[in-house]
């Protein structure tokens, strides 16, 4: 009983924090139908700003800066105000231009904003934890309830603050004209504009309040755990989103309820399940996935929020942007269109170029980097099938990659070598068997994960796939017997062909290139057929596709399967080329990175993923020569985020957009026939 009581008390404190952050998601979603992933980072900034304002001095960008040393309440007010202003600014720059764009665009931008804010925070405050200064209330002795439940005074303050903030917000929404306008535009944006509510002002207010709530949640969280860190917002952000979805996104009482439920479930789960603390993150995501499957509208939500507008990023070209920007894109387009018109000849020329580079580059260092380019290009190609062609945002793609890598590593190292003492060189051929096997396994897995998402669209789909990806990662970390846990698996043999070791960087590059040819060839064959046409039709207008006789559910699963197959297939080679894997290789950040590479290069093209990978990975290396980047390596990721936001606003089709692929089989056109017969 005492134990239970203590767990419940802890759960309530945690739940209060989740509830506050969940309000941020729910408020903005209600008004602009946007899942602003960046709230996790605003949460983190709230913590950093409060801590900084409380300290006498802080090290910012490596220099000691004197600080006012406010008390917690004053510092918190300052931090909340600053974060609220930042939230409004982010909306103005990154989201407002995309208000009428396809839903995928602001979703991707919000992920990019997260990356920017997190990298900037790391640049400014450094990679280490910032200790949260102690507030004098925290030095008081804990309150004891029922003789046995200990609650610190600060825990009580956290709960009281959360309660006060919630009640204040409810009163604001019910009473003030701005609050009522907010509710009106949450009900119906179109109608709200018609009756003369200045929607932009309402949206700005929602962002300000939401960001303030996120900051408040963040500073309370940091206060409770005693530190601030640049990546601290990530998991709580996802949990808060889960809480918002749990309660029914768009509903404020729902967010409060969802936050409390999640806090309690997590506290009880980590207290009672065997090895519960390790699995507590998985608990939230299992809850999320199960809920989205059974009741996508959440406990108190409305079902119509699970909808997506028609159209895709590729359907219409964006007309924004300065003239010089458009002319330079037009030049890129011209060159690419000419290359694409070259068809197979252009593809062969590209391949020849890659072979030439692989043969001539003298340094092992650069060969390794180029191998990474090819690997990431292949992975991004796999993701491109589902995101670029079928138009379904998948944030759990890394799971398929992990399946492939782990399958081959477990077989080679943990089973055959450790259990049976088989030398990897004796079973070199197993690698070639594992490639398609892992592909099939991952494809099966993808269908399994895809099936429950079929009823979901747009944002909910992204959230659910994200939940799956996280579950897989948590399993990989905690299922020690199967995966070796966080230590990862070492000693994975390099590829080998008939006893010839292919471990040298050059051999690996050509191995990767050969696989890339297979991957692109297979994807191209599928895309340039009725399957690809069905995918693109689903992307552009799901209902119209159905009306043309396309069983859209089945073709979505095909897209998942194809993308999963590529992920598993490439994962096998990845493991053998790295010779060491750990759950860290398969984080959500990797998934986001792959997504960004696809968007950068061009969704729905064959070269785009490779263009994106080449630009990014080469830039990542070259930039290291700049002194500024040497001092602050994270700024590169901030730049990637900025580039993505700019692309989304000015050029959502990506750089290589006019390498638009034909969706008919080459050689099946009557024109082509005739040419062949003559020749």
């Amino acid at each position, binding site marked *: 009983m005492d134990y239970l009581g203590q767990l419940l008390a802890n759960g309530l404190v945690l739940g209060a924090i989740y509830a506050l952050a969940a309000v941020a998601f729910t408020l903005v979603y209600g008004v602009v139908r946007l899942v602003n992933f960046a709230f996790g980072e605003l949460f983190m900034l709230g913590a950093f700003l409060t801590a900084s304002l409380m300290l006498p001095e802080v090290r910012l960008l490596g220099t000691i800066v004197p600080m006012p040393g406010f008390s917690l309440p004053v510092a918190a007010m300052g931090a909340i105000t600053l974060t609220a202003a930042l939230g409004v600014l982010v909306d103005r720059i990154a989201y407002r231009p995309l208000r009428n764009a396809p839903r995928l665009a602001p979703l991707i931008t919000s992920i990019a904003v997260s990356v920017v804010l997190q990298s900037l925070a790391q640049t400014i405050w450094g990679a280490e934890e910032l200790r949260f200064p102690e507030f004098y209330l925290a030095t008081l002795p804990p309150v004891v309830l029922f003789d046995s439940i200990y609650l610190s005074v600060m825990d009580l303050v956290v709960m009281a603050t959360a309660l006060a903030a919630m009640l204040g917000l409810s009163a604001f929404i019910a009473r003030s004209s701005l609050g009522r306008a907010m509710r009106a535009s949450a009900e119906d944006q179109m109608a709200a504009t018609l009756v003369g509510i200045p929607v932009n002002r309402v949206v700005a207010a929602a962002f300000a309040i939401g960001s303030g709530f996120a900051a408040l949640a963040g500073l309370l969280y940091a206060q409770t755990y005693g530190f601030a860190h640049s990546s601290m917002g990530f998991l709580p952000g996802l949990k808060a989103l889960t809480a918002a979805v749990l309660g029914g996104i768009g509903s404020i009482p729902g967010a409060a309820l969802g936050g409390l439920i999640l806090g309690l479930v997590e506290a009880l789960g980590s207290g009672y399940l065997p090895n519960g603390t390790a699995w507590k993150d998985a608990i939230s995501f299992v809850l999320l996935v199960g809920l989205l499957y059974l009741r996508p509208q959440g406990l108190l939500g409305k079902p119509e929020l699970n909808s997506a507008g*028609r159209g*895709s990023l590729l359907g*219409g070209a964006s007309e924004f942007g300065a003239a010089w920007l458009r002319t330079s894109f037009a030049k890129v387009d011209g060159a690419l269109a000419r290359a694409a018109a070259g068809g197979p000849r252009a593809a062969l020329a590209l391949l020849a170029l890659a072979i030439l580079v692989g043969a001539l580059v003298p340094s092992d260092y650069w060969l390794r980097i180029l191998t990474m380019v090819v690997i990431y290009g292949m992975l991004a190609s796999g993701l491109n099938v589902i995101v670029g062609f079928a138009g379904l945002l998948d944030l759990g793609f890394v799971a398929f990659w992990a399946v492939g890598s782990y399958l081959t590593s477990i077989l080679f190292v943990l089973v055959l070598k450790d259990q049976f003492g088989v030398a990897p060189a004796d079973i070199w051929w197993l690698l070639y068997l594992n490639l398609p096997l892992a592909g099939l396994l991952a494809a099966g897995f993808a269908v399994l994960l895809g099936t429950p998402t079929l009823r979901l669209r747009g944002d909910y789909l992204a959230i659910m796939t994200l939940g799956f990806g996280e579950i897989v990662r948590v399993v990989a970390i905690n299922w020690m017997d199967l995966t070796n846990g966080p230590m990862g698996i070492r000693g994975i043999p390099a590829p080998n062909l008939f006893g010839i070791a292919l471990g040298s960087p050059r051999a690996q590059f050509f191995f990767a290139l050969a696989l890339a040819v297979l991957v692109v060839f297979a994807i191209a064959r599928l895309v340039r057929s009725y399957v690809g046409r069905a995918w*693109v039709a689903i992307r552009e207008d799901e209902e119209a596709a*159905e009306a043309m*006789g396309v069983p859209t559910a089945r073709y979505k699963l095909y897209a998942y399967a194809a993308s999963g197959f590529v992920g598993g297939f490439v994962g096998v080679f990845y493991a053998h080329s790295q010779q060491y894997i750990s759950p860290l290789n398969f984080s959500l950040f990797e998934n986001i990175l792959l997504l960004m590479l696809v968007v950068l290069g061009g969704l729905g093209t064959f070269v785009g993923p490779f263009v994106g990978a080449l630009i990014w990975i080469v830039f990542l290396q070259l930039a290291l020569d700049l002194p500024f980047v040497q001092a602050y390596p994270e700024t590169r990721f901030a730049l990637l985020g900025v580039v993505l936001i700019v692309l989304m606003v000015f050029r959502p089709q990506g750089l290589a957009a006019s390498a638009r692929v034909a969706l*008919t*089989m080459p050689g*099946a056109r009557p024109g082509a026939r005739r040419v062949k017969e003559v020749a």
Partner: protein
Amino acid sequence: MRAPSPTPLLQARAITVRFGGLEAVGNLDMAIGRNAIHGLIGPNGAGKTTVLNVLTGFVRPTEGELVFDGAEIGGIGVNGFARRGLARTFQNIRLFGAMTVLESVLVGAHQRFSANALSLVFGRRAARDAEAAMIARAYELLAFVGLGAEVADRVATTLSYGHQRRVEIARALISSPKLLLLDEPLAGMNAVEKAEIADLVRQVRAQGIAVLLIEHDMQVVRRLCDHLTVLEYGRKLADGPPEEVLADPAVQAAYLGRAR
């Protein structure tokens, strides 16, 4: 003994559709004959599009049943309706963005393809032949709806409004439907274009495909249709041969002051 009258191609029985409190269609009985050009007319908001949505599976009727080609249909998903032979166009054109005219039309032929993933990846002969056959058919249909082969590789949404309508019709026809349902295909067209599309509808019927046509222009309806159903406030106001129906005082009253 009398010869049994041929069963209609499509029978809608006691169809009611409610959206929340609004009754968009009320207790509608309707039969579309084989090889008919069946007009569905009525003032704005009468429920015509909703009826078409019911007949193509887009809207599940609150009450009532559908019998198509001798079998009851329902619960088969929108794509199931298309597979049974019901093809449609949309009142607001819905072509796929970023697809060329040829590709868009080929999406309509989806159910004609059957190659599996392996034969696609390995480029098997059968898969290639099926593709070539459907491409040839798509070119035929483009010519049939009055579009030259030169538009085949243009992005469909960049064509003129009239041409987009024709692409939509070609996309619907390539599945070789038994019934083609057209939602105001003449809207926004000039007299010449209207005559061309009307002619096209006749040719479609000549190929043995029945047509359901929603249209506001009474001149066209009178000349083109062999049967009319008139809706008002979701209820059937009149049903029968055009001459009879259009002479009906109730129909004229419904249109007075409200006709376009």
